[in-house]
């Protein structure tokens, strides 16, 4: 009896330790090997191997490998520098970067979502792009100013270089609009009126991605901006609960709660079901960024839909009221700890060169942030022309503050919970929205 008691206790204790091992945060030791070579002599770079973490841009990780490998081979042929490629899905990328930052052992070059620029910049893990570094890749002026603005905090050297750009537009189903005798809406009032007319017999006017936190904050950002409001003040402090921000979130959630132009089921969407609903005719409109490739993959032909800028409060709005999109995009950064700095810079130069920008953005259906590449025929399709114009005329970068990722999680989740209330038939009022945003703001750590 005694033996069995001891062994059971031993088993229990082992189980306890194993279980606790899961919860206790562990960090590996940081090494500070900063022996970056700044030797710019191209001949000395020959034979060097750099690692590149590419974000997932194509239809799958394998698809990305297929797209990128011939381009990387081209680079190797021209410079003698080998590139070890790893494509990383979005769900893992930030944690991988975080681990690399902590351990000091990371890739030489990596892709980051441009909304993370300021957060990652604050860690000091990325190489700052000062004027000398930009000169080495052809100068800062080659890039669209909006894309540069989304590459780091204002007043600091950017933490990354823009690689792919995207912008939001309002996608509409041409046939459904023609059948209802409608033209694409320019104001929110028109969108709701049109949406109600199009919501009939299992079809909905609009599709939204209610459980996707990032998607939620992109729209909350634009709707607040149109009211002249921001989510952080100039010192980087959260201002989630301004009346304009509350109104912005309420307007977005109301598409399900009050206007009822989006299906209740949309509150649950987080896996791009919005695109499926739009491409299969379940929804007549959606607000999305650079969706051509995905729409096509779901069987809708390019001439069956149109793209216009996202509506504004009034027609022909100006200033902040005219903002219709956040500056969406992917940036390319060099890891501060790289031992192959010159080779890494050479690689960034290659990837942001005009011919490569045309090839890569053309393949991925995004817009080149390099101005010279934008005039290429590949980017003159009707929808890309609209998105390019949005990007240069009516897009603003998300707040470039270190706490941006907290904003995404806390406000994104608050909006998700409000959508859940709306879907369950619970009232969504100015007070309930304000309460949700107040709770989110209170959980923001002091920066």
């Amino acid at each position, binding site marked *: 009896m005694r033996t069995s008691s001891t062994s059971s206790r031993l088993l*229990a204790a082992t*189980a306890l330790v194993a*279980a606790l091992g899961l919860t*206790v945060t562990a960090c590996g030791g940081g090494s500070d090997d900063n022996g970056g070579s700044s030797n710019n002599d191209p001949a000395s770079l020959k034979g060097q191997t750099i690692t590149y973490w590419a974000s997932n841009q194509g239809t799958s990780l394998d698809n990305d490998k297929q797209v990128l490998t011939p381009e990387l081979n081209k680079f190797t042929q021209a410079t003698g520098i080998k590139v070890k490629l790893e494509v990383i899905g979005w769900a893992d990328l930030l944690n991988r970067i975080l681990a690399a930052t902590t351990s000091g052992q990371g890739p030489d070059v990596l892709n980051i979502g441009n909304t993370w620029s300021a*957060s990652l910049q604050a860690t000091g893990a990325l190489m700052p792009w000062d004027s000398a570094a930009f000169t080495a890749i052809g100068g800062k002026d080659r890039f669209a100013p909006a894309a540069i603005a989304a590459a780091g905090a204002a007043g600091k050297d950017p933490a990354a270089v823009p690689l792919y750009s995207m912008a939001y537009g309002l996608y509409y189903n041409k046939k459904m609009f023609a059948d209802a005798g409608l033209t694409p809406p320019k104001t929110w009032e028109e969108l709701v009126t049109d949406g109600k007319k199009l919501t009939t017999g299992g079809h909905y006017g609009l599709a939204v991605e209610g459980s996707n936190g990032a998607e939620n904050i992109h729209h909350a950002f634009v709707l607040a901006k149109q009211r002249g409001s921001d989510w952080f003040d100039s010192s980087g402090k959260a201002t989630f609960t301004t009346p304009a921000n509350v109104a912005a979130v309420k307007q977005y959630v109301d598409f399900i709660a009050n206007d009822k132009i989006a299906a209740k089921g949309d509150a649950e969407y987080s896996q791009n079901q919005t695109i499926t609903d739009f491409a299969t005719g379940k929804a007549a409109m959606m607000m999305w960024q650079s969706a051509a490739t995905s729409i096509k993959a779901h069987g809708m032909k390019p001439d069956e839909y149109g793209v216009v800028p996202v509506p504004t409060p009034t027609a022909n709005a100006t200033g902040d009221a005219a903002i219709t999109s956040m500056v969406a995009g992917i940036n390319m950064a060099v890891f501060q700890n790289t031992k192959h700095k010159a080779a890494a810079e050479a690689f960034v130069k290659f990837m942001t060169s005009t011919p490569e920008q045309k090839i890569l953005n053309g393949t991925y259906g995004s817009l080149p942030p390099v101005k010279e590449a934008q005039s290429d025929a590949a980017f003159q399709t009707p929808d890309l022309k609209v998105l390019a114009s949005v990007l240069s005329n009516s897009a603003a970068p998300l707040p470039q503050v270190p706490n941006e*990722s907290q904003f995404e999680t806390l406000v*994104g989740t608050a909006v998700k919970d409000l959508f859940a209330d709306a879907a369950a038939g619970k009232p969504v009022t100015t007070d309930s929205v304000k309460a949700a945003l107040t709770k989110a703001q209170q959980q923001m750590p002091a920066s």
Partner: protein
Amino acid sequence: MTATAPPRRAPEAGPDSEKTAAGRRLRPRVAERLRQVGLPYLLLLPALLAELLIHIVPMVFGIVISFKNLTLFYIHHWNSAPWSGFDNYKAAIKIHQPIGQALLHSFWVTLAYTLLSVGLSWLLGTAAAILMQDTFRGRAVLRAIFLVPYALPAYAALITWTFMFQQDTGLVNHVLHDQLHVTSNKPFWLIGDNSFWAMVIVSVWKSWPFAFLALMAGLQNIPRELYEAAAMDGAGVWQQIRKITMPSLRPVNQVLVLVLFLWTFNDFNTPYVMFGQSAPHQADLISIHIYQSSFITWNFGSGSAMSVLLLLFLLLVTAVYLLVTGRKRGEADA
């Protein structure tokens, strides 16, 4: 080998050499004894080392970090993060402040989730194990089917559940609403109030086969004669379960319930796969909550402090549990 081999020169040995021979006899005995005593420790050494590296060292790091103000500004040189004393702990336990309030909420959610999940898993496991004791046609097949959830890769199983719980196209609503007509509309399972219940259902589905397996093994050890004797004395099935089965299963149950409790309380896979990085308010389990604090809001100090509090809570629960069940068993044995 030296202990048994006779010294070759023993016949011609004088008094001096007698001493040497005695020494030789002694030394092998010491070596033998050392080997007997030392060998178990030597064999334990790799496990101890692994334990140290895999659990103890990270745990100590976690505790150190909990006293630091480790945010994104310091993760590059994390050991240079400033010390924050008990600030992280204070923030975590101030239940009238937002951070403490949110942690307490997720603690209650987790506790409810754990008690429900463990209770139901145990009930199901016990019932199935008892029913499977009697031999009948198809028993082996049924046993194998019961163990499927335990054998499936967690991620694949959980993602399948999320498909089944989709409001519009999921199998769950299809059966409940379209086929059985038990609900007037299609409820949401992955957002809102039901998200908690969806999580409990998945957790029970995942855990009960383990309870079944452990209890089935435990039942094998109960001598059949006990039941035969009880039956002769006129005890019914229910009485047999109460008086023979349950007391005999007590040692198994003691470990089983504790292990299930600890696993479920720390469950990360279920909410993460079902809801992603931000679970609905109603299903905000403590593991996801700590993950968010540490890895999404990049406040590792705060996340570590919460982890340590959780560790202390689980240690306390385990200690009390072992004490109470140990005493009960002691009483039963006496």
